[in-house]
């Protein structure tokens, strides 16, 4: 299939940036969106032009590196898939596809489609962990956890930290990401010990980074490649209130 890619080109952080349209020919409908970009970049390379920069690593939806707003949707059309899992058959032959980077003040563009997401890392440093002393491996059954609770924690833990929730949100809020990260630990006995301090510090860092306020539009849940539920935002709110009232 043949498509036209209207893609954001920006040389550096300080460059103003602009859209440039490129024809991309003979793309297999089974190719992923990123493979289509590879095809384009090879063509650009042959002509001696600078290839389009984009983030990627695992290319199987588990690392959270990739992320492009495609035709106005974070990770493109469809649900429950990262950009690397998006297939070209989701588009029609002859389509013009608009590709732009995540846009939010805490995600400055570094180059073309690549944004700086260290703001999310700083939220994690602020409290997204448990302080455990290393030692002998504990006995497997020493801390019993009910199956539904373990499942819920696992669902939260499937967040790959891609930032699509922020990119999709009209307020650039990171509540789904922070909700998932707070939930995965708050649900488990190992994480409960530091729960109050964690939620306080992570929300504080989130606010400092300049993410917006949640308006409960739930665009995040709709665009999350891991389909993380806004139930985790409710839990984040609950944990925050518990911390304040206690």
């Amino acid at each position: 299939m043949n498509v036209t890619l209207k893609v954001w080109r920006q040389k550096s952080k300080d460059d103003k940036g602009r859209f440039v349209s490129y024809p991309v020919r003979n793309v297999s409908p089974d190719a992923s969106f990123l493979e289509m970009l590879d095809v384009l970049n090879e063509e650009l390379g042959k002509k001696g032009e600078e290839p389009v920069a984009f983030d990627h690593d695992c290319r199987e939806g588990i690392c959270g590196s990739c992320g492009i707003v495609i035709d106005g949707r974070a990770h493109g059309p469809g649900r429950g898939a990262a950009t690397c899992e998006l297939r070209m058959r989701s588009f029609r032959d002859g389509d013009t596809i608009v590709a732009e980077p995540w846009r939010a003040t805490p995600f400055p563009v570094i180059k073309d489609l690549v944004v700086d997401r260290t703001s999310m890392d700083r939220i994690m440093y602020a409290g997204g962990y448990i302080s455990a002393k290393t030692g002998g491996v504990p006995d497997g059954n020493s801390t019993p956890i009910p199956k539904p609770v373990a499942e819920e924690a696992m669902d939260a833990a499937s967040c790959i930290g891609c930032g699509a929730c922020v990119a999709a949100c009209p307020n650039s809020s990171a509540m789904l990401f922070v909700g998932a990260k707070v939930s995965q630990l708050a649900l488990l006995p190992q994480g409960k010990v530091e729960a109050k301090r964690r939620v306080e510090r992570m929300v504080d860092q989130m606010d400092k980074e300049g993410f917006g306020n949640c308006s409960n539009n739930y665009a995040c849940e709709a665009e999350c490649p891991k389909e993380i539920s806004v139930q985790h935002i409710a839990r984040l709110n609950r944990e925050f209130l518990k911390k304040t009232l206690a």
Partner: protein
Amino acid sequence: MKKLIDFYNSSIGKKVTMSLTGLFLCTFLLEHLIGNLLLFAGEETFNAYSEFLVSNPVIRFVEIFLFASLLFHPLVGLLLWISNKRTRPQKYEVYQLKENTPLASRITMLTGSLIFVFLVVHLRTFFVPLRLAEVKPSGYALVVEAFSSAPYCAFYVIALVFLAYHLRHGFQSAFQTLGLRTKSYIGLLDAVAFIFWFIIPLGFALLPIYFYFFQPATTAAATALGVH
């Protein structure tokens, strides 16, 4: 106190302020509608209720919170709206928010602003004469008079449609903000939400429609006509 200020300064604290003031306004709407339905019971009953409201000290006390909510809710809403706008100075070329979110959730600022305009007009028509005027008029007569005007009735009904949209999103949102919209309660919450976003605005809308089309006479008018 410092804890409270820190709480308010956090993003979640501001949302909780919105949520609590919004829900307080919702309880007021319920009370107000029940009271207003007394209009159907006739002039005497309604005026007795209206005088009770003016003279009751408990109502006067609760009223302070009502006006505080009416001030803070829009104010904090506006502040949040402005700061949220700033988080994306460079807009998307294409942004398909409408594919992911219900309409009501995208227009809270618009619906809220119109409710605000409505409230100013509404207080001017009813609250000011009933509470602040030297000579208290009949509450019932005020209603009859106001609802004899077609443009006024139309404005009223349109504002209630906006209120319905505001609460369509707002009611469940307030519970989500408080962390109470959990899997086991969503069904119950949606049912209660329906009362607030649909039944209550509909109930309010029945009043202008009834008074405009049936125009019941007031005692004063009846006396003037000599048909008492």
